[in-house]
């Protein structure tokens, strides 16, 4: 039962009570660390990026604040797919919210093996989210999302093996988000998430060297919001499957803009570092906006910002 009337929506085969998703990599996997009452307004929880085997993550400094933003170089630190299935997945599922299982892989064989493990717990997983966009690893991650042939092979393979709803989290670094989105749709994805962090870097001026060991890192936070919004706009125009808007949403107004641009749901990440009640604030904002315009269902809000100067709205 949704806390907010009219905000329930089906996103790529997953029914969300609220269209606000916790993005991958920002939320503790142990429910004991979730702030009390903070699940209100959350429609689904994305797991931290899971790889086949455990990963230590990147060495050295991992965080660098920038003007209105945050560079991170975490490097997919996670306990691996066996630990995920045994520990994290049941813990996340205990929230009662759909779990979006975010997976990262270096090879198609790894992708097949992870999916095989997750298929055994299919009932606990709302959707599989293929991470083809992590900028902080040398193999896999973003490299799948910037090469369109690789992207097509990976999504096709996942669609063939995975028994549930399939989402793909695309990279802002893709040469064309429209082309990447169309490839995902044609290869069997039921939703796309646009996008992930933007590739950036910082230099330590005192040491006269790059701040991060891996030199480049992923930029998030309000600084990237206008860039993300443009990507949503382009992606929505190119596919008929739902688009989840992700990137720089740190307040309810930005989330609303994402819906008006055509996003069917939004994912929040860095914004939660500032305010863990952001999801519920977004829901209040959406409800109020809809009420003021006599919009009964969130579906009718999606893409309303595209009805201007003869534009016809969401693709299709």
């Amino acid at each position: 039962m949704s806390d907010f009337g009219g905000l329930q929506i089906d996103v790529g085969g997953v029914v969300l009570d609220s269209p606000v998703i916790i993005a991958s990599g920002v939320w503790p996997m142990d429910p004991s660390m979730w702030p009390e009452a903070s699940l209100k307004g959350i429609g689904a929880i994305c797991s931290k990026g899971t790889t086949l085997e455990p990963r230590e993550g990147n060495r050295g400094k991992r965080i660098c604040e920038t003007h209105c933003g945050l560079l991170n170089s975490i490097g997919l630190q996670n306990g691996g797919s066996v630990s995920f299935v045994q520990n994290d997945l049941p813990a996340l599922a205990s929230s009662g919210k759909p779990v979006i299982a975010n997976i990262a892989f270096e090879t198609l064989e790894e992708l097949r093996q992870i999916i095989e493990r997750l298929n055994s717990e299919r009932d606990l997983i709302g959707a599989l989210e293929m991470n083809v966009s992590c900028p902080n690893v040398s193999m896999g991650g973003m490299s799948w999302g910037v090469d369109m042939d690789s992207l097509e092979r990976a999504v096709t393979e996942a669609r063939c093996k995975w028994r549930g709803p399939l989402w793909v989290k695309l990279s802002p670094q893709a040469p064309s988000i429209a082309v990447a989105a169309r490839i995902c749709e044609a290869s069997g994805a039921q939703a796309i998430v646009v996008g992930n962090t933007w590739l950036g870097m910082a230099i330590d001026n005192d040491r006269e060297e790059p701040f991060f060991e891996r030199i480049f890192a992923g930029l998030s936070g309000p600084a990237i919001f206008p860039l993300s919004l443009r990507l949503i706009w382009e992606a929505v125009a190119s596919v008929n499957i739902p688009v989840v808007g992700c990137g720089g949403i740190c307040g309810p107004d930005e989330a609303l803009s994402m819906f008006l641009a055509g996003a069917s749901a939004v994912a929040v990440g860095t914004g939660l570092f500032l305010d863990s009640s952001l999801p519920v604030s977004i829901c209040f904002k959406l409800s109020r906006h809809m009420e003021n315009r006599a919009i009964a269902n969130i579906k009718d809000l999606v893409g309303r910002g595209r009805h201007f100067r003869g534009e016809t709205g969401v693709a299709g």
Partner: protein
Amino acid sequence: MMNQLLTGPHKPPIDLKGSLVFSEAVASGCRYVRIKTDLTIPASSPGQFFLLRESRVSDPLLGRPFASINASRNSVDFLFRVVGRGTEILASLPPGTRVDLRGPCGNGFPVPRSRRLILVAGTLGIAPFFDAALRYGSTQEIITILGVPGHEWREFAGWCKERIPDIRIVSDDGKIGNSGTAVEEAVSMFRSEDEVWACGPIPMLKNIGILHSAGCERLFVSIEKRMACGMGGCLGCSLQTCSGTVRACVEGPVLEWKEVLWNE
């Protein structure tokens, strides 16, 4: 046996809103501030910390982690040094400014078990020990040691002495108190049954391991790391220990000295 600090249970921090009540310069680029919160602050232990940021501001984006030097139901005090743009902006905020607080975060120092407790601080590392000295002063014999680089820290040292009258102050150049480092001072008075807590720069914390070699069974350090979420989600503050990778904001910042892999 796995260190209980690492295994928990851990409590999540909460998000609070409040106002800056006062903000005073303490010399040496340090600032003493008080925040009055709208809602009740959960009880905390010395060494736990809060993320402090100006409300509704995106630049700087993240809260800065500060150990509370004193906390009550609706107010919390911090002592911090201006070390960059973020702390410079926080130091310049006028009273009345609305702020966001997330906390209390992480694990503080455990309740002391030894009769005598030695608190070893390097400059701003003194912050959590005001609370500790107050809290355990009636049940423990407490020796507080503050190490500073030199005479330019005189006012700061005086400020600390006003609050902890029997504090022992040492300086590298010998211009304030005895000549030497806080670690040397701690070593000079250490007895094997003592419990020792330390907070300060990483090299100092690493050096205090000499007390571990000298037989200190309960040697705890508070480790400072860059962090973002403060609730164990982002893994930006991971550090290596004998028990594996831990989060400074959840399993830390206070860890047993022997747990930390100091050369990582």
